[in-house]
């Protein structure tokens, strides 16, 4: 144990990162878990997607639960966790933001927390768009970063939208117009505002309202309908520039990094919940006149999953700590957490389906919500493989 580590172990936050949950985090998680337990049970989420007796074309329904989101965002203050108190936020850190993501992952909650309160908020905080940050922090409006859901930290600045210049009718100064199409955007269907990276000289970030003419959102039949994607077409949509050049780059990278770190925690929560559901089921389900959970074959696999969770938790907490502490190790920490937690969540959800047997293969059981969320989230913000590949540079392990 280095001195730094030892001292940090005694006094959390001093040099070596604290990987535990603070009391405040535990309180926040507890409140959120109560709320979700009452208003976002798996069967509630399933119901929003259309059961056999209900809507048969869930692609045409709105999966986001805006009422629930108001409670989470406003009542619990989760929308403004990352925002300083003086900007109407909670003045918490990325640790708390990650803890919230964990709880939402446990519930596969169909709310735009990740896209709005983490990704978009981080972008806006980076560029210093005070007014919009305040609106988001209060939970009055939600925003989404208009990039493909699969975009990873380190991705090139996307140039699929471009500035088409002010229209002749644009009398007000500073109004720009955007054209182009962005495919597969998460959390945008429920968003009031879009933060749009756009080509131009120089390239920049723009804010576009979703209610205006010239913005068309087309819902996508998504693998994970609890976080439905959409394609967005901009046809001379009025836009407000908020950053350009290097500042826009920085804001985009910060937003994608925050998204990758937060979704790692979300995956951790999801994996934890899958294990919990599976353990509960195999304790109850009897075959061969024994609970199936008494068979060592299953027990050892579940034990291995739990072992994986101890590792995933350390990785996710380290990534959250690095972002909270503005630690230069953050890129590496995010690559570790995103790849490990993503793989583990997929494995946990797959085991959840398998160990539930036939019932886990049905639509009526919520296991598939977790499977689809886990698999989709393992691609969002960069696949596990891509994040591991980035270690070649980050950990000096070059390829052939």
């Amino acid at each position, binding site marked *: 144990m280095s001195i730094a580590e030892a001292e940090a172990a005694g006094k959390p936050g001093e040099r070596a990162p604290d990987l535990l949950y603070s009391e405040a985090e535990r309180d926040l998680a507890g409140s959120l878990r109560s709320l979700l337990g009452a208003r976002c049970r798996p069967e509630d989420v399933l119901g929003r*997607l*259309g*059961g*056999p007796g209900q809507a*048969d*074309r*869930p*692609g045409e329904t709105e999966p986001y639960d805006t009422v629930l989101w108001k409670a989470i965002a406003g009542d619990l203050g989760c929308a403004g966790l990352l925002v300083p108190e003086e900007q109407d936020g909670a003045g918490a850190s990325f640790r708390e933001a990650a803890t919230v993501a964990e709880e939402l992952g446990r519930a596969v909650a169909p709310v735009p927390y990740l896209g709005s309160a983490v990704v978009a908020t981080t972008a806006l905080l980076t560029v210093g768009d005070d007014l919009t940050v305040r609106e988001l922090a209060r939970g009055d409006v939600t925003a989404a970063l208009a990039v*493909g*859901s*699969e975009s990873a930290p380190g991705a090139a600045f996307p140039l699929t939208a471009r500035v088409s210049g002010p229209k002749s009718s644009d009398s007000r100064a500073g109004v720009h117009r955007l054209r182009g199409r962005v*495919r*597969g955007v998460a959390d945008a269907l429920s968003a009031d505002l879009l933060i749009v990276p756009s080509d131009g000289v120089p390239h920049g970030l723009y804010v576009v309202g979703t209610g205006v003419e010239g913005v068309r959102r087309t819902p*996508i*039949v*998504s*693998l*994970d*309908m609890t976080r439905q*994607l959409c394609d967005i077409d901009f046809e001379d949509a009025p836009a407000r520039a908020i950053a350009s050049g290097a500042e826009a780059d920085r804001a985009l990278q910060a937003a994608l990094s925050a998204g990758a770190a937060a979704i790692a925690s979300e995956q951790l929560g999801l994996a934890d919940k899958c294990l919990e559901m599976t353990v509960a089921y195999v304790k109850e389900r*009897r*075959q*061969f*006149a*024994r609970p*199936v959970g008494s*068979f060592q*074959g*299953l027990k050892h696999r579940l034990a291995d999953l739990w072992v994986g969770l101890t590792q995933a938790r350390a990785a996710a907490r380290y990534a959250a700590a690095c972002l909270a502490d503005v630690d230069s190790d953050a890129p590496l920490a995010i690559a570790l957490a995103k790849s490990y937690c993503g793989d583990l969540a*997929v494995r946990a959800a*797959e085991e959840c*389906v*398998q160990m539930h*047997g*036939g*019932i*886990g*293969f*049905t*639509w*009526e059981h919520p*296991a*598939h919500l977790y*499977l*689809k969320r886990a*698999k*989709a989230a*393992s*691609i*969002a913000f960069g*696949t*596990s*493989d*891509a994040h*591991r*590949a980035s270690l070649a540079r980050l950990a000096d392990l070059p*390829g052939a």
Partner: protein
Amino acid sequence: MLDGPELNAPVSDGSVPDGSVPDGSALTAGDIRDRVRQFLAATNPVSTPRQDFLHARFDAGLAWVHYPPGLGGLGAPRALQVVADTEFAAAGAPDNDPGGNAIGLGMAAPTILAFGSGKQRKRWLRPLWTGEEIWCQLFSEPGAGSDLASLGTRAVRDPGGDWVVSGQKVWTSLAHQARWAILVARTDPDVPKHRGLSYFALDMTAPGVEVRPLRQLTGEAEFNEVFITDVHIPDADRIGEVGDGWKVATGTLMNERVAIGGMSMPREGGMIGGAARAWREHPERRTPGLHDRMLRLWAEAEIARLAGLRLRQQLAAGQPGPEGSAAKIVFARLNQEISGFEVELAGAEGLRYDDWTMRRPAHADFFGRGPGYRYLRAKGNSIEGGTSEILRNIVAERVLGLPSEPRVDKDVPWKDLPR
């Protein structure tokens, strides 16, 4: 029992070593070819109405050539079936749509052949082969999946010697199209669970049979729940002796597993083909990690294909062996890994799904859909037809001779088991 797409193998692969191969075992590929050509010369494959043609083909012993004469076959080596199929296909003859009656061809037929009476074989095999009568399988119950022998559907003998059956079955594909079902029910609750079962053919049009769709995580409903309420089954439709139901059902399940693992296909013919094509078509998606996985999966899939070929060679050489269970375990794992890989390889496209609509396909089709569908549907491959866990138990105990777990349900009458 979940019994999906892997049963769409051609009928020539879909059955196990027959109990009885009276003669014809010396027939060669040339002999079969000659007989088909003679048959085709006499029966125009294009102008003859489809059902007439299929009836004639059955009656000529060219339906399943390894079945006995008089039951659609010639008692020929099973490996020669493909010669007949190929000749008929080349002549543009109508086929019996084997994919539409996979359970009938793959599981009911060999069971009827092995355990049915002469009268039952005569009654059921011909319309089964021609596809006039679709069959389904009523084995699994909500409370009896892996532990199939604990099933609770009751068959009570009435004074006339026939049976009155009540219970609930689940994971029944084709139930909504089937005329007949193979059914296992409990005829004696007072003996240990394996000993109190009997095996029946159930007329699905009988009063008291209700079929409800069962939606699965892919969005569609391949399967059904079947509710059986006081349904009358003539004793003449019992297959095997009273109390022998477990033995007969075990034979049926072995057929299923051999069918799954022994499937024939060319290199890149299975799910790996789609992944390899996507790999070749999208160089921009390649990374070292994905490359390694692509190579590993390709190698494993090709080896699994070779193992399937070897399994069929063993069957043809009369060395059946237990490799069918291995093949099914590998099939399930590879389908799951390959489709999971495919979704990741697809990246942004992998986040889309084609259709969540609740539909009722006759059978699953891995290849008409996107990678997301394959990924989800493949999750069933390690559950349906015997979970991979149950198959590992079978391998461990029956192949390796490892001791069984301490059994708490041994020698206990079924009615006294904890549930």
